[in-house]
C-alpha cells in the first residue's frame, strides 16, 4: 500500500463512506420515485394505457429542466428547499437532496425508455386477459423490462458518482471532493491519482455488476 494512502487512511475511508451515503440515497430515490415517474412518463404517452397529455407534459418538463440545469447552479438553487427538508444546507445529508432530485429525473427518463422497449403485444395480451392497469405494470411491463431497468440503474449510478464530486461545494464530501481538495488544492498529485483510480475501480465494478445482473435476468 502506498505510504500516502496509509497516511490519509481515515480521511479516505470517510470520503468513501460519504460517497456511499450520497450515491446510496440517490439510488434509493431513483428506485422509489424515479421508477414511478418514469412509469407514468411511459403510461401517459400518446397511444399508451393512460394517455394524458397534461400529466405527460408536466413530468416531461420536470425531467427536461432538471436534466439540463447546470448541476452546480441546481445545488445552489435548491438550498432553501434542502434546508426545509433536512434542516440544514450543508453536509453529506444535505448533499443527498439535490443529488436525489437529479437522480429521480435522470433515472425516470431511462425507465421510460426501457418500458418503451416492451413489445406492445405483451401489454395487449395482458389487457385481453383482464389485467388491471396496476397488474399490467407489475406483472407484465416491469417484468419484461427488468433487464433494461437494471442497466438504466447502472448507468444512472455511475452518473450519480460523477455528480457527487460536485457536492464538496456544500460540504458533501466524497471521494471526488477528497481528490479535488487534497490532490488538487494541496498538490498531492499522487494522492489525487490514487483517488481517481479508486473511483474508476468503483465505476468498473458497478458497470460489471449491473451488466452481469441484467444479462442473468434477461430471458428474452
Amino acid at each position, binding site marked *: 500500500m502506498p505510504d500516502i494512502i496509509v497516511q490519509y487512511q481515515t480521511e479516505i475511508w470517510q470520503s468513501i463512506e460519504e460517497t456511499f451515503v450520497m450515491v446510496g440515497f440517490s439510488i434509493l430515490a431513483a428506485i422509489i420515485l424515479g421508477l414511478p415517474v418514469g412509469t407514468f412518463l411511459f403510461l401517459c404517452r400518446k397511444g399508451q394505457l393512460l394517455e394524458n397529455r397534461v400529466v405527460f407534459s408536466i413530468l416531461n418538463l420536470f425531467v427536461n429542466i432538471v436534466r439540463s440545469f447546470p448541476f452546480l447552479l441546481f445545488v445552489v438553487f435548491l*438550498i432553501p428547499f434542502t434546508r426545509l427538508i433536512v434542516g440544514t444546507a450543508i*453536509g453529506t445529508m444535505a448533499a443527498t437532496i439535490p443529488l436525489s432530485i437529479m437522480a429521480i429525473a435522470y433515472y425516470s427518463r431511462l425507465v421510460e425508455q426501457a418500458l418503451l422497449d416492451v413489445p406492445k403485444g405483451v401489454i395487449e395480451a395482458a389487457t385481453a386477459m383482464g389485467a388491471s392497469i396496476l397488474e399490467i405494470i407489475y406483472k407484465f411491463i416491469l417484468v419484461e423490462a427488468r433487464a433494461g431497468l437494471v442497466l438504466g440503474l447502472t448507468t444512472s449510478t455511475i452518473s450519480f458518482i460523477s455528480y457527487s464530486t460536485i457536492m*464538496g461545494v456544500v460540504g458533501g464530501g466524497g471521494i471526488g471532493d477528497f481528490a479535488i481538495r487534497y490532490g488538487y488544492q494541496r498538490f498531492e498529485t499522487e494522492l489525487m491519482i490514487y483517488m481517481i483510480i479508486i473511483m474508476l475501480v468503483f465505476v468498473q465494478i458497478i458497470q460489471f455488476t449491473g451488466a452481469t445482473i441484467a444479462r442473468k435476468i434477461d430471458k428474452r
Partner: protein
Amino acid sequence: GQKDNANEKDGSNDELVKLKVASLIPPMTEILDVVKPLLKEDGIDLEVVVLSDNIQPNNALAAKEVDANFFQHVPYMEQYNEENGANLVPVQAVYHAIYGVYSKEYKSMDEVPDGATVAIANDPSNIGRSLAILDHQGIIKLKEGVGINATQADIIENEKNLKFEEVDLLMLARMYDDADLVIMTPAYAAPLGLTPKSDALLTEGLESKFAITLVAREDNKDSEAIQKLAERISGPEVKQFLEENYDETAIPAF
C-alpha cells in the same frame, strides 16, 4: 488610404505592451478595471483573465500564461511555491480583506452555545487562516507552530466543542442562514450586507499579513510593465475607488 489607416491602427496597437493578469472575483477584478485605462496611458494593454478557482491563477502564472495575478495573500502564495517548487513573488500589497467571524443568531462569542457549527472554507490555506483566527482569539487551541497550515487535526483544545463544516469558498455566504458561525472574507460577507467592522463577532485585525497582493514571477517582477502596474494599483485612483465602494471591507494596504 484605407490600407494605411489599417497599418496605422495596427501600429498603434503594437506599441502597447500586453499584460495579462489573472483574477477571481470583485473587488479584485474591479480594481483591475480601474487601473486598466490608467495603464493605457502608460502604453500598457491590461487584459484581465477571470478564473473561477483559486489554483489556476497560480498555475497560469507559473506556466507563464499570465504575467501576474491578483487574488491572493502572501501566505497562500508561499504555500503554493513550496508545494509546487514555483518562484512566485509578491509585488505590491493592495488591500486588506479582513477575515471575520459572523453569526446570524448570536451577537457575541459568549452567546455561542456548546457544539455550535462553524462553516469555514474548504481549501487548505483558508482552513488554516480560519482556525488561526479562533486560535488567536483563544476560542480553540492549535498545535504549536502550525500557523497557516493548520487543519482540523491540529486542534488540541476546543472548549466550546465547535463543529467545523468545510464548504466551498464560494458557498460561505450561503451558509450564513445555516451554520451558527461563518468565517469568511469581506468579499463574501458584503453581499449579505455584513462588514467586518460592524457585524463580525471576531476579526483578524489590521496587522494581518493576509493583504491581497499583486503577485508576479521572479523573472518578471522587475519588468517595466509589472512595475507600472504595481504603481498604478497602489495609486490614488484605487484608493479612492476602495474608499468609495468598499469602505469597510477592503482597506487599502498602501
